[in-house]
């Protein structure tokens, strides 16, 4: 077969002066700071090729995480130095194709290659899937002269008995090919040398071009895909030698169990339950330590203010209001997140989560969406704001919107303490002591199930009314099971998820702390504003089985669910600041004896807590992810009205029956 080698689509650009002001000019519109860099390196590749692992091993801790301008696609960039030269590394989104730019991430990768014109593009390839990956290699080579193929995961290929002749592959492709194992660092030094040589123009590349034209009709695209795969198949057949596998392919055997009719669901539930258990139990002690430390700082700060003669209101506002709100949220929120997110990421990198989406897709099909929604819900158990961001994994815009709008129905970490407290004090108390803890746990599980039922019901409703449309297509790659890189996961899940969520929460919690303090310390006609407001809300509260103080607490503690109960206790006890009580017996005395809570109050509050309005961070995230104030409003008001309606019905029904 003859292969045409048409002239380069884009002439090789002139090299700019060292220190590369050109890099800065080209990267600035993309929001990437390339100041002081000599060369720009792009990483391209299919999903699941170990591209992120390679990116992390190249850039180490020097990376910057954000979004591509105007897009909700994550962008990571970083830098490394080699022999006095600085290299800017940009991790392009993982894509299956790059020429036609049909999806946001393909468009980003394509326009980066064309407009930012990196000095070298590293095409990361999964050695165990060479034929499939070559499809993207051919496409990238259409767009750039300077490329290096990184033949990653060669250890896995060796285990499968696959031997790839990378010399022949390099000759055929016209660009250097370097075998690597990014996870262990094998071959990375060679890769760096080759990349440096190509970037500096010292190593000439003559990429093989198939003469594909970007952006043409569906018919042309069909022909192009056939041509690409014919070439890929022929080339893979030439360079890959299949020997005897060193080990069994246990992956498929595991899959047959994980996706079986009998074991599929129990295994998934056990995995999820294990994560929750580890999170709740593991966060307990660090939370106490952190709280002891942070509230110690509050005491220190306020006595310092007093010693300096600051007026009482200033000390109160700064330390017992603003700071206390912030400290409370951080100590309750940080430990569970720091445990939950890495665990979740480990399951993700292990390859377990795609199987969960696979197993549950049918269920979600029935309510008009898809299996990946289950993963965004699971993420929501950690934090709804993070859950909303995770909806990016869903391709179909309609399914994504439904998943975003319903994410708040799964209770996040911040709501568990409330649910557990209610289950322990009220539900468990109605059972004989032997069954008390079991009853408490069952009531929390029941609350979670109510949330899941609400998710399915509302998804079903949305997909049949306002978001009616074509059933979405669902194509899901099930990558091989892989050993997760725990060190990298600890770092990335801490930086990407925990710190980001915490930062937003802190920005919201501090002003809320201030507002809550003002409410309980400003008074009119001898009574605090909090008291006035809770009295005003009382009739509505009673109608839905709650009371005015509870509704007020939900209203002012909207920045973080973690401070709803402390706010409530502050209002009840007139403490003047967010309050806690030292024992469950005391709590029971405050709630039941002094404020007349019943089992009905507890039930309605559990229901309200599961269904109610998302926290302000989540609402803000819905706005950022949908780019629409209207959808953010729907995301806030839909759960609120559902929660009010449900609690109203339960309260009225209970009162009729008794």
């Amino acid at each position, binding site marked *: 077969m003859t292969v045409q080698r048409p002239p380069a689509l884009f002439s090789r650009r002139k090299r700019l002066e060292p220190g590369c002001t050109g890099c800065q000019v080209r990267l600035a519109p993309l929001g990437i700071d390339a100041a002081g860099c000599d060369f720009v390196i792009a990483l391209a590749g299919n999903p699941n090729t170990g591209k992120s692992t390679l990116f992390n091993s190249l850039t180490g801790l020097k990376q910057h995480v954000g979004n591509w301008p105007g897009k909700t696609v994550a962008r990571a960039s970083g830098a490394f130095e080699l022999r006095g030269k600085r290299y800017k590394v940009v991790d392009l989104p993982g894509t*299956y*194709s790059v020429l*036609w730019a*049909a*999806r946001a991430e393909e468009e980003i990768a394509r326009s980066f290659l064309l407009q930012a014109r990196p000095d070298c593009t590293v095409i990361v390839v999964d050695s*165990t*899937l*060479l*034929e*499939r990956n070559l*499809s993207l290699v051919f496409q990238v080579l259409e767009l750039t002269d300077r490329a290096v193929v990184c033949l990653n995961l060669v250890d896995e290929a060796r285990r499968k008995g696959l031997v790839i002749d990378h010399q022949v592959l390099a000759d055929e492709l016209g660009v250097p090919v370097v075998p690597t194992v990014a996870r262990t660092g094998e071959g990375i030094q060679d890769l760096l040398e080759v990349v440096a040589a190509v970037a500096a123009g010292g190593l000439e590349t003559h990429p093989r071009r198939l003469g594909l034209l970007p952006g043409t009709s*569906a018919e042309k*695209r*069909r022909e192009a*895909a*056939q041509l690409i*795969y*014919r070439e*890929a*198949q022929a080339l893979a*057949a030439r360079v890959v030698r*299949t020997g005897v596998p060193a080990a069994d392919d246990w992956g*498929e055997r595991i*899959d*047959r169990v994980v*996706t*079986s*009719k009998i074991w*599929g*669901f129990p295994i998934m539930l056990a995995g999820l339950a294990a994560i929750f258990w580890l999170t709740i139990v593991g966060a307990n002690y660090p939370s106490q330590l952190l709280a002891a430390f942070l509230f110690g700082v509050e005491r220190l700060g306020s006595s310092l203010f007093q010693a300096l003669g600051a007026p009482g209101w200033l000390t109160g506002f700064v330390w017992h209001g603003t700071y206390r709100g912030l400290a409370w949220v951080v100590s309750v929120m940080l430990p569970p997140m720091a445990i939950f997110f890495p665990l979740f990421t480990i399951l993700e990198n292990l390859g377990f989560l795609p199987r969960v989406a*696979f*197993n549950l*897709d*049918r*269920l979600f*099909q029935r309510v008009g969406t898809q*299996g990946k929604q289950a993963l965004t819900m699971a993420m929501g158990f950690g934090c709804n704001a993070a859950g909303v961001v995770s909806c990016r994994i869903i*391709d179909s815009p309609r399914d994504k919107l439904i998943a975003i709008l319903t994410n708040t129905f799964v209770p996040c970490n911040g709501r568990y303490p409330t649910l557990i407290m209610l289950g322990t004090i009220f539900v468990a108390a109605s059972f004989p002591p032997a069954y008390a803890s079991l009853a408490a746990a069952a009531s929390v599980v029941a609350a979670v199930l109510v949330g899941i039922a609400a998710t399915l019901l509302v998804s079903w409703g949305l997909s049949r009314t306002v978001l009616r449309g074509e*059933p979405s*297509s*669902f*194509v*899901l*790659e*099930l*990558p*091989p099971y892989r050993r997760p890189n725990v060190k990298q996961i600890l770092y990335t899940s801490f930086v990407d998820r925990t710190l980001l969520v915490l930062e937003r929460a802190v920005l919201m919690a501090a002003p809320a702390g201030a507002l809550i303090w003002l409410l309980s310390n400003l008074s009119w006609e001898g009574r605090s504003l909090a008291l006035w407001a809770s009295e005003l809300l009382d009739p509505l509260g009673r109608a839905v089985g709650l009371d005015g103080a509870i509704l007020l607490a939900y209203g002012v503690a909207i920045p973080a669910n973690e401070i709803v109960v402390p706010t409530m206790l502050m209002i009840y006890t007139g403490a003047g600041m967010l309050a806690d009580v030292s024992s469950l017996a005391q709590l029971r005395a405050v709630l039941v004896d002094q404020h007349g809570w019943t089992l009905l109050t507890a039930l309605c509050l559990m229901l309200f807590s599961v269904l109610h309005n998302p926290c302000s961070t989540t609402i803000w995230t819905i706005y950022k992810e949908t780019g629409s104030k209207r959808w953010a409003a729907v995301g806030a008001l839909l759960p609120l009205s559902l929660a009010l309606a449900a609690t109203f019905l339960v309260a009225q029904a209970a009162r009729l029956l008794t």
Partner: protein
Amino acid sequence: MTEDSIVPLGSLRPGDRAWVLSLAADGAEEARLLDLGFTPGSAVECVFGSPMGDPIAYRVRGALVALRRAQSEKIMVTRRVQQPHRGG
């Protein structure tokens, strides 16, 4: 190699192998299937189903890809009984 008549991919049972003949999908759906290597002439194998029977995982160009019945019905294939020269 013996061949059956033309059937949709969705009618294969786990363990069945086939060649792709044509795609009846269009737009983004067709594009994604082509990207993943479901091009005419490619070898596919039905590997396993999900607990509720839909979607089903297929091996194509070495990768494991799950398709819903709605998609797999749009891919016409012809069964192959024996191993082809290239293996699965």
